[in-house]
């Protein structure tokens, strides 16, 4: 059973002109089996939340805590967090030339489990995970993300999610740039991941479109580095109809 708790999280982004505060106290608890949609306009800090939790070197957690099943993550290295059970599906998956998908996945699985996967079942598992995402077998021989289309990169992220089966996952705008067919394929994968009922999921998105295929337990509205409103599915419907404008204005008024 996996619970991800984010408490009063403050994060700076490190820029050439010095650190700049992006997250200004984020609180969120994702219990086992819950899907939390985090919605907000561009520049509100949604991706910063994802990167900071995963341990990206350009972001610095200045205060607050993130725990997974009670284990504090913020003092850990990127790979230690992953081995603790955290997964980030990235908005812009990185190309790693010369490293095959097969080698990458096997190395990751070995690192997570502390032992190499059994070859016979593993090859089948990889083929199945890729097949589920409609990526054919030849992808396992290709370099990681190199020459992949935008949609293939996103589907490759979700193939990893299914294969590595972490305790808690953050999907950072996995839906953006996907056509409707790819969106369905990706949503099916995410639903299979959460179907076990004991995984925690943060779904960061700009659009409500993906929520037609993935049923959120909670919807959070993210403005200017904070969660400013929370609700159920109906909140997403409201955002679909009205946009973020009233929230953005309220946040601006609060600052002024």
């Amino acid at each position, binding site marked *: 059973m996996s619970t991800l708790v984010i408490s009063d999280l403050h994060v700076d982004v490190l820029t050439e002109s010095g650190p700049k505060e992006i997250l200004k106290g984020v609180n969120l608890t994702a219990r086992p089996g819950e899907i939390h949609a985090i919605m907000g306009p561009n520049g509100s800090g949604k991706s910063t939340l994802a990167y900071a939790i995963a*341990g*990206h070197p350009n972001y610095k957690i200045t205060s607050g805590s993130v725990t997974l099943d009670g284990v504090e993550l913020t003092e850990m290295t990127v790979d230690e*967090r*992953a*081995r603790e059970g955290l997964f980030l599906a990235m908005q812009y998956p990185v*190309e790693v*030339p*010369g490293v095959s998908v097969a080698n*990458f996945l096997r190395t*990751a699985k070995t690192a997570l489990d502390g032992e190499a996967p059994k070859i016979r079942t593993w090859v089948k598992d990889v083929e199945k995970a890729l097949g589920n995402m409609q990526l054919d077998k030849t992808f396992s021989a290709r370099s990681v993300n190199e020459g992949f289309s935008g949609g293939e990169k996103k589907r490759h992220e979700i193939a990893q999610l299914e294969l590595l089966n972490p305790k808690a996952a953050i999907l950072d705008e996995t839906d953006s740039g996907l056509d409707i067919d790819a969106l369905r394929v990706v949503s099916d994968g995410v639903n299979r991941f959460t179907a076990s009922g004991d995984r925690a999921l943060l779904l960061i998105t700009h659009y409500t479109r993906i929520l037609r295929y993935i049923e959120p337990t909670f919807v959070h509205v993210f403005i200017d580095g904070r969660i400013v409103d929370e609700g159920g599915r109906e909140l997403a419907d409201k955002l679909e109809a009205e946009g973020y404008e009233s929230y953005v204005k309220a946040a601006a008024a609060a600052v002024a």
Partner: protein
Amino acid sequence: MSTTADTISNAAAPQAVAPNVASAIETVDSHLHPTPSWDIADHPVPHGREEIWRFTPIKRFKGLFSDEPRTDSLEWSSDLPEGVTMEPITPEQAHALSVEAPVDRVSALAAKNAAKAYHLSVAANAEIADPVILNGKGTGSAVADHVIISVGANAEATIVLHYTGSGSYAEKTDIIVGDGARLNLVTLQDWADDAVHGGQRSLLVGRDARVKTITASMGGDVVRLQENSRFAGPGGEVEAYGLYFVDAGQHVQHRLFVDHNEPHTKSNVDYRGALQGKGAHSVWIGDVLIRKEAEGIDTYESNKNLVLTDGCQADSVPNLEIETGEIAGAGHASTTGRFDDLQLFYLRSRGITESEARRLVVHGFFFDIIRRIGVPKIEDQLMEQVERELEQAAITQALES
């Protein structure tokens, strides 16, 4: 990370070239391409400020500048299949068979003072299935060789020159590839730590011939190679791949010159290196000349350097001289930098430790070149060498931190 990239392309390349143009090759005045000459007097001992020597540690290289007859060759051993012969020839014969005269003092001395000259010959139309492997071993003394490699018209072969051992070695090597032939030429500079190796390799690519070269420089104290390619007729293709792993105090220099002197020829140069340890120094010079008559040619050259530790220096100088715009494409790129933080972050975010992530990235960087060799045994051997270098890097890092 510093990056340069330029691309020039011209889709409207004319298909026909006047037949009288090819014979009228003009002389190109350029400091990049010294005038070839067999006469030692034309190649004085360099002081180190000359354009072609300014990156070279002259003191460590000076053994190769002394004009004395060499009594020994490398100890050559090989097992030659049918259709392939290797015979001693006279210096005069070697001179007559050469692609071009020496362009620097080291190769001029190699030709003049070599104990022996050799001619490795692949018969016309021969299809040599197994790689032809020549092992050249240095036994500690100063040696020089002039080697001619000729591949007959329409022949197909893979030739591997594997250099090992100690001492100083000067070479002049000329490779003549006949019309329509295919050659895969692998050279492994796999020297012991104290070896000094310099010289010139000149490749002549026949009409419609295809040549792939892989130059791997992993060992030695100083390695400096001038690698020239030109064409004997239209339609030829050369792919030149290189890799080097430069450790503390080591100097590795590859100087490439592709002379597009014939129309509709192609060249693709891709050299990659990793540097680690104090005083590790790599130099890559990539010159491409597109002559007036070289219409419809296509060329690209790339050099990438991965700097693994502090205290290393990677010099990378691509040069493109263009005398006609009627070409299919011309470009170059050069990057030198540390590990890509995003690549490491991505790999580590999947649970892979930092050292393992670094290992994967370097593996990938080199594997991209190594997989083109086409000789499984040598591919494996080079990957193992990369692996060993990385282990050494991990040990060095552990000791320093």
